[in-house]
């Protein structure tokens, strides 16, 4: 075997904690990479994967310090480089693709200026040459309008495109090693697949050695030759991708694999009970409401659904589909332009200010990020006590008793009441966030991406908890997520939103089966599967990325693989009921959709 291109031996990184002591956050990590190999670093938050990735560029975040070990790239001892030499080394020989391209691009400079900066800085090309090379890369990464996209500013480019532009930026100086840090985590599944394919083609095509950091095993299965599993800054195991997926040795890897394929919870059929909430013909948006009853910027169009006591409705769609707006309208934060929201058969006033305290109490919202939803300066007891006093008038010992019961309900020890949110882990905070909503003793809770910010294992525990609460308390829940796995695992019914319209709604079982609405099918087939070769097998189904000047009658028309030009763009699609029991919004007959579904089946 030839000498490896990258060799990391006994790497140790220390960070200063709140008490001012130095604690190791990465310990004794060693691995080696041959030229052209792709290694994945996988682990949950706090596993040290980003810290290791950054140390490959000789960089440690403020407050951290690379305190031991060696990193060798080619013949260079990375940790022994002077500051001046490091500047030449970074970008020229190792480059970095950050998690959030929208944050990592400078908002006040054009994309081209930032993509070519590295080549100009390191003198690998003159301006014209660098721009030519950038345009070549844009083309290789399947970016639309490669000749001119560089003249735009970051805010004028979509998230998926920015992520690909960042890959172009990383590759411009033809580095020996590319470090990709969760490059698709912030993207929708349908966008992620295109970005993954573009990355894979470019990395494999140029024979670049790469380190791919991710928490998602299914994504890693598509990209990596080998996988290194990390936990709390220590190596759990390292091996070829196929071996890690089929025969994991470490118990931790086994638990990661188990959490990646969630088990269905709850019943397949919604329980037969009266609906707690019914939404009829709901249209809502932002801006002034016109004479035709449409807001200036409509976000939701003609939405209708019911949620029964003890059942849950999953709402799924990509970013911008109107999922969160739906929760805001039901909660009364955004008054609807048209349509009704009925609570126990009684119409609710559209605006929050007109609702009675009783109505407010019965609908509670659980926000996505517990970090920002909980006041960091107050104890958990005070956070939970306030809604108890507000809605139920309980004070003193009675209030403390109720706080204790709530904590018990969300499976937290009573001692947590004395602590502040900052002292709790992410999962514990999300439990407190849930308990805060439950304090009102609501009939309906609206959960907006409540597990998105959590690690898979922690998120799965929250889903279990919610399922228990739903059965014990007979709660109706609306569960908003961009993750099809999550929604299918916890909801009795699933509603698919696309551009503010409900394109498919049906029971959980129905959403599992073909045929689907073409958008549902795109979603289903875009969720990476936990096996190698899935990405190659799956053909591209995404239509051209063009946004017409007029909104077509069916909003999905430009991306639809079975669109009927002349019909779908002109006539609003009818609602039809499929034999599996789901309603869809489509011109296509069931037989056509079934045929279309076969090659990309689950």
């Amino acid at each position, binding site marked *: 075997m030839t000498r490896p291109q990258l060799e990391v031996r006994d790497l140790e990184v220390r960070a200063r904690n709140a008490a001012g002591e130095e604690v190791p956050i990465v310990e004794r990590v060693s691995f080696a990479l041959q030229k052209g190999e792709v290694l994945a670093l996988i682990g949950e938050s706090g596993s040290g994967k980003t810290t290791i990735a950054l140390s490959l560029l000789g960089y440690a975040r403020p407050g951290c310090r690379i305190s031991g070990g060696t990193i060798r790239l080619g013949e260079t001892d990375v940790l022994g480089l002077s500051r001046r030499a490091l*500047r030449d080394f970074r970008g020229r020989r190792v*480059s970095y693709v950050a998690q959030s391209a929208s*944050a990592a691009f400078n908002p006040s400079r054009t994309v081209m200026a930032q993509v070519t900066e590295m080549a100009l*800085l390191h003198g690998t090309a003159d301006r014209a040459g660098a721009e030519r090379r950038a345009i070549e890369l844009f083309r290789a990464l399947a970016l639309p309008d490669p000749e001119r996209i560089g003249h735009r500013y970051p805010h004028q480019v979509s998230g998926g495109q920015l992520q690909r532009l960042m890959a172009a930026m990383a590759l411009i100086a033809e580095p020996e090693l590319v470090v990709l840090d969760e490059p698709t985590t912030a993207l929708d599944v349908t966008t992620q697949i295109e970005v993954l394919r573009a990355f894979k083609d470019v990395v494999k095509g140029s024979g670049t050695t790469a380190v791919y950091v991710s928490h998602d095993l299914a994504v890693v299965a598509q990209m990596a030759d080998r996988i290194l599993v990390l936990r709390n800054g220590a190596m759990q195991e390292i091996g070829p991708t196929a071996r890690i997926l089929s025969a994991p040795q470490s118990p931790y890897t086994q638990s990661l694999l188990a959490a990646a394929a969630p088990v269905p919870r709850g019943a397949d059929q919604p329980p037969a009970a009266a609906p707690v909430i019914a939404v009829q013909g709901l249209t809502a948006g932002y801006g002034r409401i016109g004479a035709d009853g449409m807001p200036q910027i409509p976000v939701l169009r003609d939405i209708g659904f019911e949620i029964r006591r003890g059942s849950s409705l999953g709402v799924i769609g990509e970013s911008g589909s109107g999922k969160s707006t739906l929760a805001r309208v039901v909660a009364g934060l955004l008054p609807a332009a048209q349509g009704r929201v009925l609570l126990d058969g009684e119409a609710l006033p559209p605006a929050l200010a007109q609702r009675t305290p009783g109505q407010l109490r019965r609908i509670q919202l659980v926000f996505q990020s517990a970090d920002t939803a909980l006041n960091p300066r107050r104890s958990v007891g005070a956070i939970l006590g306030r809604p108890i006093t507000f809605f139920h008038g309980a004070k003193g010992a009675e209030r403390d008793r109720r706080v204790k019961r709530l904590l018990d309900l969300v499976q937290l020890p009573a001692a947590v009441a004395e602590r502040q949110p900052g002292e709790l882990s992410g999962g514990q905070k999300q439990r407190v966030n849930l308990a805060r909503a439950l304090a009102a003793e609501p009939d309906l809770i609206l959960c907006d991406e409540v597990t998105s910010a959590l690690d898979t294992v922690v998120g799965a525990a929250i889903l279990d908890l919610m399922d228990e609460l739903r059965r014990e308390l007979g709660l109706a829940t609306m569960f908003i997520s961009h993750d099809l796995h999550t929604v299918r695992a916890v909801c009795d019914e699933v509603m698919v939103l696309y551009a503010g319209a409900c394109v498919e709604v049906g029971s959980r079982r129905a959403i599992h089966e073909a045929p689907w609405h073409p958008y549902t099918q795109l979603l289903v087939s875009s969720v990476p599967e936990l096996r190698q070769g899935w990405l190659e097998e799956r053909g591209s189904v995404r239509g051209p990325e063009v946004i017409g000047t007029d909104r077509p009658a069916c909003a999905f028309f430009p991306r639809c693989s079975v669109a009927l030009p002349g019909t779908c763009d002109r006539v609003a699609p009818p609602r039809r009921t499929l034999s599996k029991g789901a309603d869809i919004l489509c011109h296509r007959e069931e037989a056509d959709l079934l045929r279309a579904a076969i090659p990309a089946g689950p």
Partner: protein
Amino acid sequence: MLRLVAARIALGLVSLLLVSLAIFAITSLLPGDAAQEQLGQAATRETVEALRRNLGLDQPGHVRYLRWIGGLLQGDFGRSLVNDMPVAQLIGSRLPNSLMLAAATAAVSVPLALAIGTTAAMWRGTAYDRAVSMLTLSVVSVPEFLVATAAVIVFAVQLRWVSALSAAADITSVGQFFRVFALPVFSLCCVIIAQMVRMTRAALIDQLRAPYVEMAVLKGVGPWRVVLTHALPNAIGPIANAVALSLSYLLGGVIIVETIFNYPGVAKLMVDGVAQRDLPVVQACAMLFCAAYLVLVTTADVVAILANPRLRHG
């Protein structure tokens, strides 16, 4: 973008109109009037009444306001009640002095403040940064009359480097220019630099924490380039606002400095106007200061809009 800028300017004009109302109302509330002031304690009620009528002070407030604002719009600032000179001429003779002082101070303070703020942000947490923080904090907390008086005592009285009084008229050479302006400019700089340094530092540090700065470092961009080409363009908005606020002080807030150095500027004219109940002069000076303030702040907003590609191409 043009709409945004136009809206900003229109808003400035509306503010100016409201300010004119406020100025007029407040100056009308001043106890005593020019007639009383001119004729002194001994005047009879009839002579005071006659002079009041003569000066137009017997008209109801809204009529006087409309006549005044109408005059302003036509460039007529009225006549001084005290010496019957046109107010425009009074201000015109003082304004160049004030502008010269303001320009000299701005030319010294803005580059200095930006340089200190930028370097403090770059080397944040170092001894240099802490020294800058301490110094600006202590300078901004010392009242300017103390700074000015101390400067006079040290540099004019003890060291005899410059003269204690500044009269812009005696400038004949560059050396003279420095001798006249050194002390007032120094005193004013002490007051306004601190604010600009602190805002520049804070705005830059805010940007230096952004992920795109880390990205630039990982691209191999050197520290100066990171600050100057990556962070600074994004910090222009808040910095321009801090500069505008500080500079606006130079026109209206220099009363103390002009008084201490007996400098014949507009602020001193206004102080004298108040003492003599010369309302047209006071009102015109107040309007001038407010207009200058609004022009500066609006310019800062427009700069912030132009510096932000989201708004520029919005």
